[in-house]
């Protein structure tokens, strides 16, 4: 019988981790709302559980989304996660085959090679030995890549990696030691007992040539067990707690649980699911402005450590590019807004002095939005379009109207925003209109998300114009322009409107695709969501975007957002036009052509 004390650190670590996981998961479960608990119960034995399991396998082990980001990075994550998972599973199968029984101590499977020295044959022995060595090689290749990533991250398609905490470094070091130590200890035992596979046996035989293996065996296994134990003990305090949490998060998400407007335990689950992989860092445009501590990964870290400051929280464009890139699928924007709501809860406005200005009866309401009033050409174009298409419309914010409430929402002033929403909503319903046309994507998003107008069709003006063109209520001619379309954050990632503006532009001129578009589109830098950024920093971000556009040599950068238009126009480098303005130009062109034709007929 061999000594077993070496396994103690591993056993203690595993037990500790198990207890912490159970306590935290129970605490999070209890903290959910009644409805959410019901959702979990109801979906326990449905296809949703199966879906969660598949997703946990594809994302948690295979790391499909990381692969999409970069193949090397994906391989590194996969070899570590999936390789280790297989080592555990097949290791247990091997121990099961050896013991010919379902019950044997857990550590006898993990340290199987140490115990299996009697030469007693068991089912599929050679196969198991070979597979286990192959898997070890697989994991070690990932560890080697992880070492290399510290020296050269560009190989993994990353410009930046996360700045870690000391707790993360301890866990990281422990993790880095686990598999090399496993190779050494299995090698030593193989050198002594000839029970290794193609790698461990060769390695052991080499070691046997010049090392006193007998004395080294026990310490080596102890070191291996210690690194495992240390990793498990530090795991709950480090970023690696994302491993158990992510699986839990995937299940909750698939049950249909959503973030609330206040922080609950689901928000905690999301926060703990962040692996601090740093993929969000490269997608963040704030880097260009020299702002390097407000990215989502740092916000989540600060939320977790309860060290979040206003400086970090409010210095974000909420453009949503990080959310798009996040391989875990954390609701980064909403989490930040939840925190903003919490931080500004104390000082919302009452708007007691506001009262409704009354409404006019019409079929269509036009809400230009505050920002459109600073770009009057959009409003003029829309008037022209309404006029030509014979639309019976009421220009809601022509003279007196409150703000839509979205800028307040972005700042976290939800209670104040709801006051304005209530005021505007009443006016909209009173008008009896069936359609609400909005020129500003910022307003569009809040009308769609928070106004609760189920009977009214809410359209962005690009959708509205496209509809008119398709129904031939307005005539347009082809313009001889090379156009590029800029997706605004609120309309694109925010409201998922990508195609209607493009469809319309294809009819207006020659639409050229840009490298970063649709979900990956850049923010113009003007976003109202950032309350901290200086004008100079905004300009830096804007100029980077303009640089990207300038390569395409467009006649016009076409926007569908007055704020983007105003921001780009400030650079004075490229001609910028709103989609409505171009439509009006195409309408004029069409009119000219038809007059020309008539003249030709008369002559």
């Amino acid at each position, binding site marked *: 019988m061999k000594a077993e004390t070496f396994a103690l650190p591993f056993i203690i670590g595993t037990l500790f981790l198990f207890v912490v996981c159970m306590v935290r998961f129970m605490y999070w479960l209890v903290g959910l709302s009644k409805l959410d608990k019901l959702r979990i119960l109801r979906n326990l034995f449905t296809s949703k559980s199966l879906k969660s399991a598949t997703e946990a396998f594809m994302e948690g082990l295979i790391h499909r989304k990381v692969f999409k980001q970069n193949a090397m990075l994906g391989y590194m994550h996969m070899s570590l996660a999936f390789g280790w998972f297989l080592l555990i599973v097949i290791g247990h199968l091997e121990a099961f085959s050896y013991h010919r029984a379902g019950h044997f101590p857990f550590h006898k499977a993990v340290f199987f090679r140490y115990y299996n020295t009697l030469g007693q044959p068991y089912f599929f022995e050679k196969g198991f030995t070979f597979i286990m060595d192959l898997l070890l090689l697989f994991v070690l290749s990932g560890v080697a890549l992880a070492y290399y990533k510290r020296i050269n991250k560009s190989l993994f398609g990353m410009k930046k990696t996360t700045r870690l905490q000391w707790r993360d470094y301890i866990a990281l070091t422990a993790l880095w030691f686990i598999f090399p130590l496993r190779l050494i200890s299995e090698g030593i035992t193989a050198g002594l007992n000839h029970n290794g596979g193609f790698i461990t046996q060769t390695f052991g035989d080499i070691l046997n040539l010049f090392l006193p293996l007998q004395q080294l065996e026990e310490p080596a296994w102890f070191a291996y067990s210690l690194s495992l134990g240390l990793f498990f003990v530090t795991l709950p305090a480090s970023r690696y707690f994302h491993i158990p949490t992510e699986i839990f998060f995937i299940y909750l998400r698939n049950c249909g649980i959503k973030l609330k407007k206040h922080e609950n335990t689901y928000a905690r689950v999301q926060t703990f699911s962040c692996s601090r992989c740093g993929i969000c860092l490269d997608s963040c445009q704030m880097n260009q402005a020299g702002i390097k501590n407000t990215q989502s990964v740092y916000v989540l870290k600060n939320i977790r450590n309860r060290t979040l400051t206003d400086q970090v929280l*409010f210095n974000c464009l909420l453009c949503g590019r990080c959310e798009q890139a996040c391989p875990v699928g954390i609701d980064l924007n909403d989490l930040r807004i939840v925190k903003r709501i919490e931080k*500004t*809860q*104390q*000082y*919302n*406005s*009452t*708007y*007691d*002095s*506001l009262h409704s*200005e009354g409404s006019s009866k019409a079929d269509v309401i036009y809400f230009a939005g*505050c*920002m459109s*009033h*600073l770009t009057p050409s959009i409003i003029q174009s829309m008037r022209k379009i309404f006029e030509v298409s014979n639309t019976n419309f009421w220009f809601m914010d022509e*003279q*007196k*109207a*409150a*703000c839509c*409430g979205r*800028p*307040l929402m972005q*700042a976290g*002033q939800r*209670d104040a925003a709801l006051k*304005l929403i209530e005021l505007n909503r009443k006016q909209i319903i009173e008008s009896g209109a069936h359609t609400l046309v909005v020129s500003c994507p910022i307003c569009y998003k809040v009308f769609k998300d928070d106004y609760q107008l189920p009977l009214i069709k809410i359209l962005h003006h690009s959708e509205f114009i496209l509809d008119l063109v398709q129904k031939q209520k307005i005539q347009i001619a082809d313009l001889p322009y090379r156009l590029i379309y800029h997706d605004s954050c609120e309309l694109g990632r925010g409201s998922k409107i990508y195609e209607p503006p493009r469809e319309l532009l294809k009819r207006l001129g020659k639409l050229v695709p840009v490298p970063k578009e649709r979900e990956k589109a850049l923010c113009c830098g003007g976003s*109202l969501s950032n*309350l*901290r*950024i*200086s*004008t*100079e920093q905004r300009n830096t971000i804007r100029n980077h975007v303009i640089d990207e556009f300038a390569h395409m040599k467009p006649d016009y950068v076409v926007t569908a957002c007055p*704020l983007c238009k*105003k921001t780009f126009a400030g650079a004075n480098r490229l001609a910028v036009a709103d989609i409505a303005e171009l439509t009006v130009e195409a309408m004029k062109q069409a009119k000219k052509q038809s007059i020309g034709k008539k003249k030709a007929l008369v002559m």
Partner: protein
Amino acid sequence: MKKFGYSPIEPRTIDYSQFDGRLLEYLLREEPSFSTCLYCGGCTATCTAANLVEFNIRKLNILIRRGEIENLAKEIDKCMLCGKCSMVCPRGINTRHVILLIKKGIVTLHKKPEIVRL
């Protein structure tokens, strides 16, 4: 005299020796661009809230520098944070941040949550 609709005028003297500069210092520290305001009034001219109710964002600066916190609290309640003012500001002052800081400052520095109600 009250019977005839007259009432004593509230004293409007401002004693600068009693000036409470906590809010002003806080604003200038957190948003230094605020100090560059040249009172041009562009913000007031474009203001969405001023279009609806009696509100003057430029005046806020004066109220702060006079230490009239109670009046300031009444005024600041009307801002809708729409951001037009920051778009037109010739000095590029981050006006939305200033507004949010004033709101926060009144509550945290002057401990007057009863003025800015929830």
